[in-house]
């Protein structure tokens, strides 16, 4: 994801779309600390999925989103790309069993 980071403020998520999609949280240094997705079980799409995920990411200071109906494959792609670059998935993400390998080259 290459969109600019937006600051996490108390009401930062209120105006977010209720659509399905993927999101990233970053720390003060704009390093990705969590990659998430709003799937079809989320109550208000990205808005509620991000609010729920923020609880587990105390170091998160910035966010960016991408609305997409291919939320699951995009979520896995972001995780794989992150791991290909850094050697591990973001610190607040749980292990994803069977996560594939990318070598973008």
């Amino acid at each position, binding site marked *: 994801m290459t969109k600019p980071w937006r600051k996490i403020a108390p009401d930062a998520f209120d105006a977010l779309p209720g659509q399905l999609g993927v999101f990233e949280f970053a720390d003060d240094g704009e390093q990705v600390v969590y990659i998430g997705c709003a*799937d*079809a*079980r989320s109550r208000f799409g990205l808005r509620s999925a991000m609010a729920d995920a923020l609880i587990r990411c105390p170091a998160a200071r910035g966010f960016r989103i991408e609305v*997409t*109906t*291919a*939320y*699951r*494959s*995009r979520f*896995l*792609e972001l995780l*794989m790309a992150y791991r290909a670059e850094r050697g591990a998935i973001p610190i607040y993400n749980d292990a994803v*069993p*069977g996560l*594939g*390998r*990318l*070598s*973008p*080259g």
Partner: protein
Amino acid sequence: MPSRGWGGCHRGNQMDLSLSEEQSLVVAMVRRFVAQEIVPLELSLDTDADELPREDYARLRAKTEAMGLYGLDIPPEYGGPDIDLMTRTLLAIEMSQHRAGLYAPCYGVFGGAGLAQLFEASEDQKARYLFPTLRGEKKGCFALTEPSGGSDPARAILTKAVREGDTWVINGAKIFISGADKADYALVFARTDTDRGRGGVTCFIVDTDTPGFHVRRVVHTLRAARYATELGFEDLHVPHANVLGEVNKGFAIANDRLSRQRIPYAAGCIGVAIKAHEMAVEYSKTRETFGAPLSSRQAIQWMLVDNELDIRNARWLTLEAAHRADRGEDFRKDAAMAKLVASEAGGRVVDRCMQIFGGYGVTKDFPFERWYREMRIRRIGEGPSEVQRHIIARDILGASLR
């Protein structure tokens, strides 16, 4: 739904529309399994999920093993259940009757054969790839299609393999390859003779951790959960011992798979169509408009009639193809007809059912929108409709249309 009782088995040279006692039992068992084990689990999964949590997968796999139905596509001599293709097709119709059923029938708890081509591998290759795959220790992927085209693999294969002593060096690219990012090995088709068309393609078994094997990117499609990948090969060194079959005879390996795959592929479309139709029939009886149930409207009745016709037509052709294959007859044209009719009919049925459900039909509260997206892909995957018509026309006219 009345049509669910129709199955089809073969006695002598004739197709019989009734199931044998054994088929009835096994079909009923799988139908019950889908209704009692798979459908309830889907309530807690994302609507686009195509995998079960590991503990659920392990629990259900143990059940299919206890049922004697694990590894449906594994030949009996390798430990699979001894069922004919007709019965396998009937089961595929049942196994797809849930939300993820088209591309993840029963979430894989009935197992799979992996890559059937490996049954023809050398003993050494079987030991290194086939048996670990059957034990669930290794995964493989099938890498045929290239950016230059998928429907005409004999000409479109531009990936090159050049022999250097006991090693082959492969360079090129593949696209729309499922599972490559999780695979331990890939069956890679490469051109080994530039002057011989389909007679110049060889199949290699390639370990995916070999330097030069790259999974370049995820290819996003209408399917939200399962994705394809794009592969790149840069000076990929593969030992000659990893040639599957014979040099320059890889196209026959690919082609055989493409024909065989079309029958269960068609069956999956039929299963989803049956389930969608079943839901629409029930809904039309309870949903009222202008003071009367939808089912009283001729416009709805005709949609349901067309569904019934589409399903029966597709099922007949698909079971006939399975019947011919079981009898050892040439079934290439029949498999093409089954794939063509079932994938197109399935799309029409799901579309009509969405229409009957109105606004609800397009929500993620119901499975129709997923089936609609995935069914559209079925008209392209495993050979698009136009290629199936090409195969049928070639058979009718008794000549090559190349």
